[in-house]
């Protein structure tokens, strides 16, 4: 037979082009996104390394001294180190506080993002997979949730549950899972009707296998995009809640709490107390958003040639 059907000629591949490689090379086509990714990486590294690269543990009250309060950038603390970014009203070294705050903000954003993504994905897949009445009910709930602004939902929840990192994560999860559910369900519906799913059915593969091995991987792209954007959202939302006084506790400040604390100093000329944490928040959120934007462009099949 092979004499009648000549194998298709092929250009010998120097390296196998995996979807990941292809994706990476497309991603790095944009210079600004590359810079944003590097910046984000740097921010994450700084946050992770915070305990080792800061002069002060701002959560240890023994290391914080009100006598150091409100010092401008470059002042020397009682303990002897220099506060390059100044200190806040309670005597926290802002450089240390920002890095520790980043840890909290990022972990709040990422944790809520991951949990919401997991829950939303499971629910969205279930809806798309089950169809019929189950899908209907699930999607009604999702609609409901979406018709309520996330800020309001989170605000109510935190007000009810009280302060704390765990509570705020829970509130953000409740406020956000529906976005993921809708996204997954939307793409899963599209994927479900694609012929490769029918082919899998035809081949007698189990439904679970079809959903998890075939449909799910194809839903990940939009999920990741929504995930990055929502993570950035979560970080700003946490800041906003803290500003409204229902966010995280004063003594273990996230970036949002730092900004909110510094807010009252805005008119007094002590700009550094909220401007530096504000810049840190801005850089973080902007870089996440830029990365998310590029992900969207790269992962969105509609923009592909």
């Amino acid at each position, binding site marked *: 037979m092979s004499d009648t059907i000549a194998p298709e000629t092929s250009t010998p591949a120097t390296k196998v082009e995996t979807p990941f490689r292809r994706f990476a090379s497309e991603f790095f086509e944009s210079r600004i996104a590359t810079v944003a990714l590097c910046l984000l990486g740097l921010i994450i590294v700084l946050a992770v390394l915070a305990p080792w690269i800061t002069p002060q543990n701002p959560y240890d009250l023994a290391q914080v001294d009100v006598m150091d309060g409100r010092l401008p950038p470059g002042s020397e603390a009682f303990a002897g180190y220099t506060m390059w970014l100044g200190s806040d009203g309670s005597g926290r070294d802002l450089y240390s506080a920002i890095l520790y705050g980043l840890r909290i903000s990022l972990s709040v954003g990422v944790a809520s993002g991951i949990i919401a993504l997991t829950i939303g994905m499971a629910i969205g897949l279930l809806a798309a997979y089950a169809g019929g009445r189950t899908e209907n009910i699930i999607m*009604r709930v999702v*609609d409901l949730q979406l*018709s309520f602004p996330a800020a*309001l939902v989170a605000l*109510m929840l935190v007000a009810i549950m009280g302060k704390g990192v765990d509570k705020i994560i829970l509130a953000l999860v409740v406020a956000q899972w529906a976005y993921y559910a809708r996204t997954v369900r939307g793409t899963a519906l599209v994927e479900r009707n694609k012929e490769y799913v029918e082919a899998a059915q035809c081949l007698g593969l189990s439904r679970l296998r079809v959903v998890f091995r075939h449909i799910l991987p194809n839903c990940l792209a939009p999920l990741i995009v929504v995930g990055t954007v929502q993570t950035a959202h979560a970080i700003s939302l946490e800041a906003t809640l803290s500003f409204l006084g229902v966010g995280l506790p004063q003594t273990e400040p996230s970036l949002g709490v730092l*900004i909110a604390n510094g807010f009252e100093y805005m*008119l007094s000329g002590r700009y550094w107390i909220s401007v530096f944490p504000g810049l840190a928040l*801005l850089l973080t959120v902007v870089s996440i958003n830029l990365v998310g934007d590029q992900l969207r462009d790269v992962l969105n099949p*509609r923009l592909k040639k």
Partner: protein
Amino acid sequence: MTVFIIRRLMQALLVVFLMSVIVFFGVNVIGDPVHMLVSPDADQADIEATIRRLGLDRPIWEQYLLFVSGAAQGNLGNSFIFGEPALKLILHHMPATLELAFSALFLAVAVGVPLGLYAGLYPDSLLSKGIMAGSILGFSLPTFWVGLMLIMLFAVELGWLPSTGRGDTGHILGIETSLATRDGLSHVLLPAMNLALLKISLAIRLTRAGVREAMGQDYVKYARAKGLSTRRIVFVHVLKNIMIPVVTVMGLEFGSLIGFSVVTESIFAWPGMGKLLIDAILQLDRPVVVAYLMIIVLFFVLINLIVDILYSILDPRVRLRDQGA
């Protein structure tokens, strides 16, 4: 269409019910309003009298049943703090919030759509890149921070606009609004701008994405092949298509404008529902919180309905009864 309205109404009922349960019991968990309310001089007997007066001595489920039976007659209870019917309080504060939200929405569309249109038509120009960078900033800057900056700049430094408050009101179509007077308008501008910032970014991105997609569509090429001018193509063929997502998304975002007005209202001392809500939450004024959420739910249902109808008007392909939602 009928089905559609029925569906929405059923949805509303369900949400209102669920919301009332969650909030009613939730607020109860937060804390005890009595200790916030009584004057510090009050002795134990006074405190107990207050508890009885507010009906808080009954079991919570009984309070809920009382609330439900009251609600069925349009009485959502009296505010603990203000002593007036919660519903009345909210309705009283609603126009201020609505005018703020509408102004913000208007700004978002009036500023965002043209910018997005430009950025979509000339994606490679420097200005477009600037617009897109600005829109990222708009997404990322915390509202409260921007709010104070606006006050600092426009009210304190430049002295062009008033810093806080609502200003004089006038009447448009019998509704009292500050949009009717010059003074009122000058007051509304800063907070509206603050509130609109995020939505402007959203409008820019939606519009740009829409334009970019539409410009690649066959129907645009076909319109060019018919010899139409670029103006007509952009302003009739493209704009009409991108208005579909813009109007629907912006319509739905109206809800979040109202939700987010909490922040703006507290910074600009804007006498709206958002401020009322946050105060009510902070002071455990349960009837107001519950009533606020009821009203908001109804509002959202209404907005959704309007958006859906608008959608079906803008997009002839959509007929309401076909829709799943």
